[in-house]
């Protein structure tokens, strides 16, 4: 199958596209990129790479570009992996399907249900706890939130970045740091003491098809996993399963939680594969491949077991590419 994949960044802020592409090596892969500097373009994983218009330009721009790519490279499916582009793909999934390109995404309603601002209500539905969270759109809101929640406090962006602040000065510093880069709203959140655990899974709209749980052992400054260990946390598995079954989630997801050994606190649910998805593949649970099979209408066996105490280790590698490839991609928007 000819599959297009987005999210080709592979720096210390890696996008999930490379993990997805490595899991789908047997297919003909097309890379969709927003920046010719993304290292994943030059890793030899894609037979062709196209630059895409930013999602903020709207569906018409996207449609024009994707129709061109469809005609030229005969793509049959797309796996979008970036938070910023997912709303567009989800909203227009039926239109994209009409163009002859398959996706495997949740409905817009499901997608909105797990929005960070709706998690307090949503966590009740799942029967898990959720740290007290206050939406912030001004400095006054932040000050009020610190009075309600006390210190330390998490200051978070709605899509990206999260910092722990121990006093008001730090909270204000992070408030500006995040809002200057990512805009509003921001979230102030109670700090939960415990261990952060994550689950990557795939739902078919009714049931959890497969998944893997991990505990991050080390992260980059941006909080991206650098090493991790596979875990078997029954509560995390059960709540991930319930999440899919309760709302009928279709597609990939990453369930982020904190555990104090007794309770599970839902932190957030990402509506896509995480950048560490290839770890699941290495453990024998190839979620992107399962997704492709579901797209093709094939039956996929449920798979919940995987080896425990296996370590995921990310590392830096170097490669060489022709500078001409870089300039070609910039000037012709395809390579």
């Amino acid at each position, binding site marked *: 199958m000819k599959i297009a994949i987005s999210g080709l960044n592979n720096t210390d802020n890696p996008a999930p596209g490379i993990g997805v592409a490595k899991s789908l090596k047997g297919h003909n892969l097309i890379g969709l990129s927003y920046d010719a500097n993304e290292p994943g373009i030059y890793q030899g994983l894609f037979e062709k790479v196209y630059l895409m218009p930013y999602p903020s330009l709207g569906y018409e721009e996207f449609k024009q570009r994707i129709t061109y790519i469809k005609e030229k490279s005969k793509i049959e499916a797309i796996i979008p992996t970036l938070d910023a582009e997912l709303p567009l793909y989800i909203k227009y999934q039926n239109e994209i399907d009409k163009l002859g390109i398959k996706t495997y995404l949740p409905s817009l309603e499901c997608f909105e249900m797990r929005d960070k601002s709706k998690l307090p209500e949503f966590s009740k539905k799942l029967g898990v706890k959720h740290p007290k969270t206050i939406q912030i759109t001004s400095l006054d809101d932040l000050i009020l939130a610190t009075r309600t929640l006390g210190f330390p406090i998490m200051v978070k962006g709605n899509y990206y970045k999260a910092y722990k602040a121990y006093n008001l000065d730090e909270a204000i510093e992070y408030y500006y740091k995040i809002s200057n880069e990512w805009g509003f709203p921001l979230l102030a959140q109670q700090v939960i003491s*415990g*261990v952060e*655990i994550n689950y990557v899974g795939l739902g078919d709209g009714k049931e959890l098809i497969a998944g893997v749980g991990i505990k991050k052992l080390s992260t980059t400054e941006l909080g991206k996993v650098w090493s991790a*260990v596979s*875990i*078997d*946390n029954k509560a995390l598995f059960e709540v991930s399963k319930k999440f899919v079954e309760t709302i009928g989630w279709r597609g990939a997801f990453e369930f982020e939680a904190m555990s*104090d050994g007794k309770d599970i606190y839902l932190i957030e649910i990402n509506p896509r594969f995480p950048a560490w998805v290839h770890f699941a593949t290495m453990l024998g649970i190839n979620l992107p491949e399962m997704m492709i099979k579901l797209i093709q209408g094939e039956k996929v066996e449920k798979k919940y077991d995987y080896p425990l*105490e296996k370590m995921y280790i990310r590392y830096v590698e170097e490669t060489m590419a022709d500078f001409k490839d870089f300039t070609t991609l910039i000037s012709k928007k395809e390579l």
Partner: protein
Amino acid sequence: MLLDEMVIDENNVGFIPSLGISFEVNETAKRIIELIKEGKSKEDIVKIISDEFDVSWGEAYADVEDFFIKLKVYGLIQ
């Protein structure tokens, strides 16, 4: 309690499979954990440690007490 799931390997590293956290333990700690898992009381553990490691009751009591506090701090026992 989380301590029940702890698996200690040949390198004396105790691993909690549900949370992916690990702890390095010495021989005394390893023995105390075994005894806790066997359901022994703190008093029994002090006596056994004192006998097996050839230390006074007072020294064993202080060490076991200190270790229990650490287990609580790490959330491994209630």
